[in-house]
């Protein structure tokens, strides 16, 4: 259980996160909101790239804020980025290998992961890959070793609809296989509702709704955050 308590992040005078308290259960949870709502900031706090001004982040009672980002990755907190991070100067296999080597995994495991995410022709250089293959490669790199938490920041950005829908069952399979807590950030609501059991909605750094997909999406506060509130109403 990933537990965030009263997390505050300040960027100068702006509050990127304003006292967010959230609990992500095992399984896939969505984190959505309009642009600038604080979704990526939340992932940055969880993965250690941004230190909160105050608040606590714990996983099954373990204080995650006491570890640096590298330590968290090695412990099992993995993430992807909006801009995927595969290394262009290496081949697909070397990309998997570099993750395996640093996350306490063996080359044989890297090969299994490649099969799991559906990557073939491992000796190809990364610049020759399609966007889907690059996204799969990035996903494969994050689940090396012993993952516990997976933070996915717009994992299907830039993919056509058919390909992005294919991603949802893959994430579900990975989540089940490794018994993960997955936090999924995306703008594609079809994809989010297909993949996630629960959704949290942020707006201007505050949590405005959290619960199952149907109830959250019909919440008036969420509609207002996404569509704006008319003065006449």
């Amino acid at each position, binding site marked *: 259980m990933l537990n965030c308590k009263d997390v505050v992040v300040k960027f100068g005078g702006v509050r990127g996160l304003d006292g967010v308290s959230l609990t992500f259960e095992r399984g896939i949870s969505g984190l959505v909101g309009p642009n600038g709502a604080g979704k990526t900031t939340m992932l940055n706090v969880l*993965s250690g790239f941004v230190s909160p001004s105050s608040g606590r982040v714990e996983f099954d009672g373990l204080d995650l804020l006491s570890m640096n980002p590298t330590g968290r990755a090695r412990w099992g907190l993995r993430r992807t980025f909006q801009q995927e991070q595969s290394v262009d*100067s290496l081949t697909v296999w070397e990309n998997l290998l570099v993750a395996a080597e*640093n996350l306490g995994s063996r080359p044989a495991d890297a090969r299994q992961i490649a099969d799991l995410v559906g990557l073939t022709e491992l000796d190809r250089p990364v610049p020759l890959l399609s966007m889907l293959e690059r996204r799969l490669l990035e996903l494969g790199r994050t689940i090396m070793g012993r993952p516990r938490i997976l933070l996915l920041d717009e994992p299907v950005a830039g993919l056509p609809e058919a390909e992005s829908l294919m991603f949802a069952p893959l994430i579900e399979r990975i989540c089940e296989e490794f018994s993960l807590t997955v936090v999924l950030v995306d703008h594609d609501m079809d994809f989010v509702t297909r993949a996630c059991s629960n959704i949290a909605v942020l707006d201007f750094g505050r949590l405005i709704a959290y619960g199952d997909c149907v109830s959250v999406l019909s919440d008036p506060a969420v509609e207002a955050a996404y569509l704006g509130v008319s003065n006449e109403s």
Partner: protein
Amino acid sequence: MKGLKVMWESRAKSGLTIGLLAGGLWALAIPMAVDDYWLRLLTTSVIYVVVAAGVGLLFSRLGIVSLNQIALMGVGGWIFLRLSYWLDAVPSMLIMCLAGLATMGIGVLIGLPSLRLSGLSLAVVTLMFAAFAEIVFTSIGFPTGNNGWRGEPAPGETSVPIPSPAFAESNTGLWFYVVITTTVMLLLLWVFLTGRWGRAWAAIKQSEPGAVSIGIHVTSSKVTALAVVSFTTGVSGALLAVPTGSLVSQSFSAISSVILFAVVLIGGAFSLVGAVLAGLLFVALPPALEALVARIPVVLELLGPTFTNLIYVAFGIGLIQSLIASPRGIAGDLAGVGVRLRRAQRWPLDPSDAVFAFIVLVVPPLSLALLDLSLAVYVVAAIWISLWLVHPLRTLWPSRSPRGIALIGIAVGLLIGALGFLAGPWVCLLAALLVVVSVNFLRKRLARRLVKMDEELASEGIHAQL
């Protein structure tokens, strides 16, 4: 062991085999082909290859612009000279390693800002160290075989050079000693580059957050790179002190570190082949250009004794050309040749690739060894220009058959070689330069046109969808 096995199975293996084979042949041919002056000069070039490889590794793998490598080389040389005096019974190879280890400590210490700084700020900090080292070397000098920690001769005493080892007495012996030591240092860098650390460095260069997210410890990876490069640079500084048993502070000026960096970009920072080219360009090109220009009376009259500074202009032009049109340097341009050589190692053997490999690996050193030197230089120039042209012409002219492209390359190469033979070396050099620069600019223009066409097609597609 498993890591080594994986590494050996990787594609880098064939590159290494070809590199060792070609390097070995060249190393055997050169002492037979050149006179003592050029052999000494090429020996020094080979020493600088290791330093260039270090500069290239830091820049290409970690984005660190290090402008103090020549100063570090001086540090290695200084420590080697002093240790050689104190430990006169110890083999010089061991003292060299000790000097390398001591330089490693200093290199890591002065490289610590690189953990916080990047880009121009880091370049300036490293340049400051190079300037500081230059002042120190000038004021305290390099040790000789005298007493005291500085090894300075006392008033009334004469300066005694450290005795050279027996193998350094003959130029050929020294050449092979330097080639073998350099090969060992390059192999050390190669093992790091193609192994676990090299992959981690590549990930850091791509994106530090991305590297951190897969558990790479950025600080220790950078410190490891600095340590390895400082060690090899320290050893090459020691190697520089072997032939004469003494060093002079003028060899380690701050400006030479800057020039070395430029030359590494021209040769190609992304491969060890680029480092070999950079070492040659850095040491052997200035006297070669001086010798050539000295034969052109017009230039001599025009520039007077300052004509020796023309090398800076040549390096400047080379740097601009490589930054604009050839970001992977000359070595990158020759990569097409490398691909065919790698293919030539696979079984079943493609006869045309085998012939190609023979021409590249065997003909140039053989012609140097067997033919009269002046003629051999033009033969080699013709072969290399022909080979270099294959890859760029293919991109410029995709519809042409490979045979047609090869014929055009050979024709241009022969023309340049013949020009050199008939009209003199400077015409050959200018013609080769003109061909390389113009072909590269054409490639750049073509690439831009292709990108523009792609954008137009994409926007047309969007309009059609709308």
